């Protein structure tokens, strides 16, 4: 009956964006998205960073793309995972989606698409804050490509975790033990080459590391292509995992 596996994805996406628009309209959202990255920029970029040079550039030019990568991760993950938690346990609107004749692929496409949109808007806000702080980037296609893949894969993680957890506390645990540490260890604040090999090696198993590499490349260099390929592999695997979890969802 449903020849098109994506049928219904658009309605899910539109609803999520409708709900997001209501949040975006409140100044508190914009401020709270920008406040933490802005503090990092002031403390590390302007304060501490004056004495630091990384890879031949000033520290702010190193830091801002990293903060954008971190915002992309946090926002795409959080909106999807906590949104699903609220929809499952509080509003119970998730049950409506599960009872509708839409394929798991469509459910993932709609939710991940909305997570990406929200992650990218937050990232843009951080970029704007960076420009205000004096960041002057060289335009590079590697940056938007990395952000697209990164938001897709973290939104997919958000789906898996949002559907596997049993409430908000568990969600917070994942954020504190998985997502936040990635933000500190995957090259947001300093290049991984500063770390000893036994530590930097395993960190390449984490997706944010590759996002941070690709984000800072001046264009589609070999290094950028490798990092983008790794991100693509992560995204494909995690999207497949999300489809699998949705298909098996039962209460």
């Amino acid at each position, binding site marked *: *009956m449903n020849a098109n596996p994506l*049928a*219904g994805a*658009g*309605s*899910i996406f*539109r*609803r999520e964006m*409708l*709900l997001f628009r*209501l949040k975006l309209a409140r100044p508190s959202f914009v401020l709270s998205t920008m406040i933490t990255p802005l503090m990092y920029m002031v403390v590390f970029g302007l304060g501490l960073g004056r004495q630091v040079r990384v890879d031949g550039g000033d520290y702010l030019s190193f830091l801002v793309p990293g903060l954008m990568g971190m915002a992309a991760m946090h926002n795409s993950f959080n909106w999807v995972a906590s949104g699903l938690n609220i929809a499952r346990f509080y*509003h*119970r*609107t998730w*049950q*409506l*989606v*599960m*009872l*509708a*004749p*839409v394929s798991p692929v469509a459910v993932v496409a709609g939710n991940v698409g909305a997570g990406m949109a929200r992650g990218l808007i937050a990232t843009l806000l951080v970029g704007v804050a960076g420009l205000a702080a004096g960041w002057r980037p060289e335009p590079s296609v590697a940056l938007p490509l990395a952000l697209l893949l990164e938001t897709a894969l973290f939104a997919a993680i958000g789906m898996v975790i949002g559907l596997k957890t049993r409430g908000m506390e568990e969600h917070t645990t994942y954020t504190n033990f998985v997502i936040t540490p990635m933000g500190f260890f995957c090259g947001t604040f300093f290049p991984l080459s500063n770390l000893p090999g036994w530590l930097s090696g395993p960190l390449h198993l984490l997706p944010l590391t590759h996002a941070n590499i690709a984000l800072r490349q001046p264009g589609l260099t070999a290094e950028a292509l490798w990092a983008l390929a790794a991100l693509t592999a992560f995204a494909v695997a995690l999207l497949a995992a999300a489809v699998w979890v949705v298909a098996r969802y*039962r*209460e």
Partner: protein
Amino acid sequence: MIRIEAATRRYGAAVAVDGVDLHIAEGEAFGLLGPNGAGKTTLVRMLSTLARPDGGRLAVGGHDTVTQAGAVKRLLGVVFQENNLDRDLSPRQNLTFHARLHRLDHVEKRVAAMIGRLGLAAKADTPVDRLSGGQRRRLVIGRALMTEPKVLLLDEPTTGLDPAIRRDLWDLVRDIRDGGCTIVLTTHYVEEAEALCGRVGIINHGRIVALGSPEELVARHGGPRLEDVVVALGAGGRE
């Protein structure tokens, strides 16, 4: 239309539904009457395909709720015990999302017609947050009707509403019943089951302890009213 055979569902060591057998014919309005924790919601959730039985099987329209969940979903309209609405969105937005999710045609027209039928025209574009309990309940029931289901599951459609509003909702349910839809309705209220249902099952501790028309139950278990039967069967108390 509905065949339930030895349906069982456990939560840990507790048995929420314990070997329920039940057949409900097409066009029937069936009432599931029982106290808090009796297993009504669990049974409805299994019928809806959302919850899997641990034992036995359930079928709607000849389709198994586990192996043919897709076919079951296409027959069903489900009204859960909680008003699962997007509270920041308006009735119109809530209905529109549902209609699109089910890929109905002429969405705007259908939504407008349903808002009219529910008597919510004045509140059509007000956030659901600002609707009364009765209005929200209407909206949830109306939403389930958007897809013109063959079977409607109503889990406590009127709990917590004042008597006048309950009667209002009863009229709506009668209207649906008279349209030929098969209805399974759960309730704590004896008079609700009597008013709406041709047949009633009394459920307690996950088991159906009595089954028949309200009149039959009164005759069989001693009356004078259905309420007395419920009390006599030990299903009247609160847990």
